[in-house]
């Protein structure tokens, strides 16, 4: 199999490593690829080193993207793991089905969603991706394909979901879909005045809907600090549509895309610009109370800007995401944001979401509480020591950070954040005794 030795980057461009990359065109080729140490890589949407393998083998899954079965009556799709969510949606939406869980971009692969056990804006109601996977085919170290589900080889099933690709290569998967009346979302915006109010409204059942998320203005100061737009939504029913939408309720649009051709200068997203933008966004969005939006615009606004991480310049940015238990959420989020502000760091984009029940998988990120995600431009290396301090705040409050977005967590903190890793490691050793599946992330965390 021809190998290309080339630098691969994390999505936010802040981590780049030389890897030996292979790209199979046919499913069968995977069986040979696993005979050498390897990690699978989807569309490179991870913000950390999860899909990097410095000086090691990386298999690009993007061309293993065939739909293997689509049951239009029961809403089940089975596909090769390299298929993108965009491709899946193009097949299922016109037939009246939708993904049960979707992250904020459709340019990620099915395998990646499973390996990272991704969540969406509906985690408080439907859980993470894990709960909707019917079965998986995992190609293990000796080239055997193992079918696993919650009843068959269940240890491999639970260790592979959220297993960051370290138990084997997810070759194909079958997922259960949710029914859909229209491709539109009925969206409601609610403006809040400060962080406390944001958290109260975000967790209030009366304000709640199928999907909810808070966009937080962390550039505002004093008593306005943490003011937000809480965006709740549900899939619009036929009755909610305008007459012209009713005639073609499941219509797909080709999303208009603009491309950022080069890296912008690093000073572009400075504190003043961040403040102005956040203020502008708060003002324009707080006026919209209730409106209809196509699902592509609601779920994937950033997909409209191809290569948007280039806006952050050559040094890139860090997306820091942690979850904190409900009882300490307000205080600890306040502490984290204060700590950043005190040190003159402004996240360009800050988002808060509510998590519901934790899943069965030992390495899954979500747990009951609030999750905070921040895009922070890398001004200088001081940011990294600052984030270490924030990791410590998260540890002390019994929270954890999301491995799919991480390139800097230490093994010691990882073990405290993910206490079930011991259980996971035992299953990993059972199915992968020679540690054939390893990534830069795995070696950094010592797993």
């Amino acid at each position, binding site marked *: 199999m021809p190998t290309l030795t080339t630098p691969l980057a994390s999505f936010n461009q802040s981590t780049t490593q030389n890897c030996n990359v292979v790209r199979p065109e046919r499913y069968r080729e995977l069986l040979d690829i696993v005979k050498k140490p390897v990690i699978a890589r989807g569309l490179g949407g991870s913000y950390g080193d999860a899909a990097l393998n410095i000086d090691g083998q990386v298999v690009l899954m993007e061309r293993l993207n065939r739909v*293997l079965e689509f049951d239009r009556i029961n809403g089940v799709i089975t596909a090769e793991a390299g298929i993108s969510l965009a491709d899946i949606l193009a097949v299922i939406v016109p037939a009246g089905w939708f993904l049960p869980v979707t992250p904020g971009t459709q340019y990620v692969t099915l395998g990646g969603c499973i390996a990272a056990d991704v969540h969406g804006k509906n985690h408080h109601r439907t859980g993470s991706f894990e709960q909707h996977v019917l079965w998986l085919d995992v190609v293990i170290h000796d080239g055997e394909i193992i079918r696993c589900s919650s009843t068959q080889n269940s240890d491999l099933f639970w260790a592979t979901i959220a297993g960051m690709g370290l138990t084997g290569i997810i070759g194909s998967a079958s997922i259960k879909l949710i029914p859909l009346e229209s491709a539109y979302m009925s969206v409601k915006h609610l403006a809040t005045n400060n962080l406390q109010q944001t958290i109260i409204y975000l967790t209030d059942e009366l304000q709640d809907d199928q999907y909810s998320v808070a966009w937080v203005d962390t550039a505002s100061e004093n008593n306005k600090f943490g003011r937000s737009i809480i965006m709740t939504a549900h899939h619009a029913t036929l009755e909610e549509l305008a007459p012209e939408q009713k005639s073609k309720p499941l219509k797909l649009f080709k999303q208009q895309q603009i491309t950022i051709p080069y890296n912008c200068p690093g000073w572009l997203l400075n504190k003043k610009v961040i403040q102005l933008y956040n203020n502008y966004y708060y003002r324009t969005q707080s006026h919209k109370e209730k409106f209809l939006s196509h699902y592509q615009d609601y779920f994937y606004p950033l997909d409209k800007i191809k290569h948007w991480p280039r806006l952050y310049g050559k040094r890139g940015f860090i997306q820091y995401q942690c979850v904190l238990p409900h009882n300490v959420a307000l205080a600890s989020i306040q502490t984290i944001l204060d700590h950043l502000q005190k040190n003159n760091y402004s996240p360009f984009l800050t988002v808060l979401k509510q998590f519901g029940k934790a899943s069965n998988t030992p390495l899954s990120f979500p747990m009951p509480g609030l999750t905070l995600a921040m895009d922070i431009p890398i001004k200088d290396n001081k940011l990294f020591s600052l984030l270490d301090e924030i990791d410590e705040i998260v540890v002390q409050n019994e929270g954890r950070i999301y491995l799919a977005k991480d390139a800097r967590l230490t093994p010691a903190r990882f073990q405290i954040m993910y206490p079930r890793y011991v259980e996971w490691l035992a299953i990993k050793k059972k199915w992968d005794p020679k540690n054939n599946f390893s990534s830069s992330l795995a070696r950094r965390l010592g797993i």
Partner: protein
Amino acid sequence: MNILILGATSAIARVTALEFAAQGHNLYLASRDSDELARITTDLSSRFPINVQYGQFDAEDFTAHAAFLLRVIAAMEKLDGVLLAFGDMKDAQPVEIINRNLTGAISILGYCSEYFIAQKSGFIIGISSVAGDRGRRKNKIYGAAKAGLSTYLQALRNELFFHGIRVITIKPGFVDTPMTYGLKGMFCVAKPEYVGKRIVASINKLSDIVYLPWFWRYIMLIIKWMPEWLFKRVRW
């Protein structure tokens, strides 16, 4: 329309099939690898509401070609066009490469032409290569096979023109497929999706010979212009 794709498991054929399917055309997929054909067939019929069928086809098994085409016509009832997309340059002896890329192509396209002439309509799209435009020391056999294929397609075009049948020669430059993956000295490598879209679009355009991407026409023009005494001294 009902279209037969020969070599349907190749990277370019697969994206071209997706593009044909997106436009609502029914497809018959053929290649040696029937496992893979079955997977691609399910993929296409899940994505688009079209009729997709498949069957095994071996370019080197010349004696089976006539029967193969009859099976395709029986399965599809009628055939409106053929895309010839098979051809490779790896893992094979020179004679095999010539047999597969050139002799096999001439054999099956011969039967297709007879069918289209009798039907008084149809089109043939043949994927040749810029490698056939001039012989390079590193690409002797593949280049010779593609040069032969380009010439054959040209002759076929001249013949079938009087029967109202179109023959289009596609000459891709470097495309991001397993054939070029990991090789040194590649430049301006095109995405297969782009090539697939242009191949399908070529049916509605006037060009008989389509370079993909377009600028290869001019690169090859310069390369073809070079006098032999100079060309033989360049190490490429």
